């Protein structure tokens, strides 16, 4: 196999991996801080993609339509997430695990059907602005020029989150809340408010990712189910609540998926699960995770 071919496959794996990272990082952040597993995360991601399509179709005639739609979609999705948090999630902070899971499961069902009602079952396709219509040649390998943008967004979010957690006051609070909510609360920091904004931030990233996704290919119903399962695999591989782990996990899953699909298309997903299981045997809490919190 030629180098150029492998290189373009590598780049598409990188793109896919970073898209997974965008979804999984919000999932992992929400779980790490609030201890709530958000089943509806990918469904909100898909809503972001559909919203982006709607904004784009309103401004279709302009070249800048896509670039404006993506941040708008992210904001609109974040607003949806905020409403969910305030109306629903707030009521189940202190409930048992299965009740929390059932609530987010119900959210996924409801949003899945709302998408069907609002946008219908037809596939939606965004016509890209001319600047990203032609492939780019890197080392002689043709790369979809939009992939570069996706990679940049992924890297920017990763760096941004890292900077937020490491250098800002609120980042420190969030990190502290992962370790001990009681202690943070005792210091006079309003925990419910932190929860609301962490959830909104997670959904914002998901909405952003959805907006970016909408121009990669057509937006279709059921896309969310594939990616949520892979995002779960990512966080299990990387370890819950670890940003680094999520990034490494995403890249592993993205690249493995991208190359496996060349040689054994039907088995690509299965291979990812096999890797997940193997990592669990060696390191039950994932590559970068810390042992269970009760």
């Amino acid at each position, binding site marked *: 196999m030629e180098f150029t071919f492998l290189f373009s496959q590598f780049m598409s794996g990188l793109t896919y991996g970073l898209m997974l990272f965008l979804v999984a990082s919000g999932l992992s952040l929400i779980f790490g801080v609030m201890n709530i*597993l958000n089943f509806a995360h990918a469904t909100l991601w898909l809503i972001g993609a559909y919203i982006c399509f709607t904004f784009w179709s309103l401004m279709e005639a302009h070249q800048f339509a896509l670039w404006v739609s993506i941040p708008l979609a992210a904001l609109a999705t974040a607003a949806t997430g905020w409403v969910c948090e305030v109306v629903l999630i707030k009521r189940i902070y202190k409930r048992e*695990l299965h*009740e929390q*899971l059932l609530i987010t*499961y119900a*959210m*996924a*069902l409801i949003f899945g059907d709302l998408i069907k009602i609002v946008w219908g079952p037809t596939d939606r396709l965004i016509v890209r602005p001319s600047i990203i219509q032609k492939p780019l040649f890197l080392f002689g390998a043709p790369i979809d020029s939009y992939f570069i943008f996706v990679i940049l967004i992924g890297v920017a979010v990763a760096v941004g989150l890292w900077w937020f957690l490491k250098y800002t006051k609120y980042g420190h609070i969030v990190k502290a809340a992962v370790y001990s909510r009681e202690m943070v609360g005792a210091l006079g920091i309003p925990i419910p408010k932190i929860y609301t904004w962490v959830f909104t931030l997670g959904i914002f990233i998901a909405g952003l990712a959805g907006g970016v996704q909408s121009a990669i290919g057509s937006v279709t119903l059921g896309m969310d189910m594939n990616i949520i399962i892979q995002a779960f695999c990512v966080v299990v591989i990387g370890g819950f609540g670890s940003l680094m782990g999520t990034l490494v996990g995403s890249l592993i899953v993205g690249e493995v998926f991208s190359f496996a699909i060349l040689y054994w298309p039907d*088995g690509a997903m299965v291979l990812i699960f096999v890797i997940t299981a193997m990592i669990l045997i060696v390191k039950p809490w994932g590559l970068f995770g810390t042992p*269970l919190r009760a």
Partner: protein
Amino acid sequence: MDKKYIFIKRFWLPVALFFIAIILPFVVSEFWVHVFNEILILGLFAAAFNLVFGYMGQLSFGQAAYYGIGAYTTGLLMVKLQWPLFACLPVSMLTAGIGALILGYFCVKLRGIYFAILTMAFGQLVFFIIFQWYSFTGGDNGLQGINPPEWLFKAIPYYYFSLAVVTIGMIILYFITESPFGYTLRAIRDNTERTEFIGINVQRYMLINFVISGMFCGLAGALWGPFNRSVAPDLCGWQHSGHPVFMAVMGGPHHFLGPMIGSVIFTFLNAFVTGFTEYWPLVSGLVIIVVVLVMPGGVFGIIKEKGYFSPRDVGDVKNE
């Protein structure tokens, strides 16, 4: 209290339900016989799930995988090899049990939410294998023409067949939950650490229980294929895994019959709602939210609160 009296107090409800179930086909139309058949099958599925959830205290979000393995085993054996239905049922239990053994081996290393995630991920693994293995499982077309033998072909005979199988299954499950093994599971649920300290191999017990649960999920799935005349990969999907969770929560997970009662409510609602809208997930989502927010203990939880039963009466799991 007299021993006989305790016996009656404990078993009047299941016995009464059984007799109601026998009489039903004489009083309702064929459509509702179908619905009741579904209730029985899904009720067995939910009761098997509850072995892991209510008794062992771990939430599995992937039991549909074993249900699906059972359904596909029966479907494949009947369509491709023309096996008789009776022979398919035990084989389906076996294959679902083997699936649960292989995947459960990893799952029982984890607890709580990690257990839930891993069971769900593995459930989805089974879904993808079935979904993509076109040559063997028919992929997303599923398998059609899974016809039960002629004397079971009509709705009512098949209903009685399901009733017999589900009743036997439920009785076996009841004996398991009331055995020392069942009480060990409760001990694991209530305090894993202490159970370990008295020399019980917790992981092994969890795995055995996971396999038993998987086998009975497989049995329920095996009944489903010939009932529906077809199987589709959706049976193993994560949405389907949510159903027994919801049934158990709605009926009351701390009661042996809770999941079955949950199945009655859930399936009735489904039959009723799908009559006039295709947006069943939306409606069921709203119902789930209301149930979780308003009646966390399920139906039996409410009945107990009102004091109709004392905790011990009908084999309550908690407080024993």
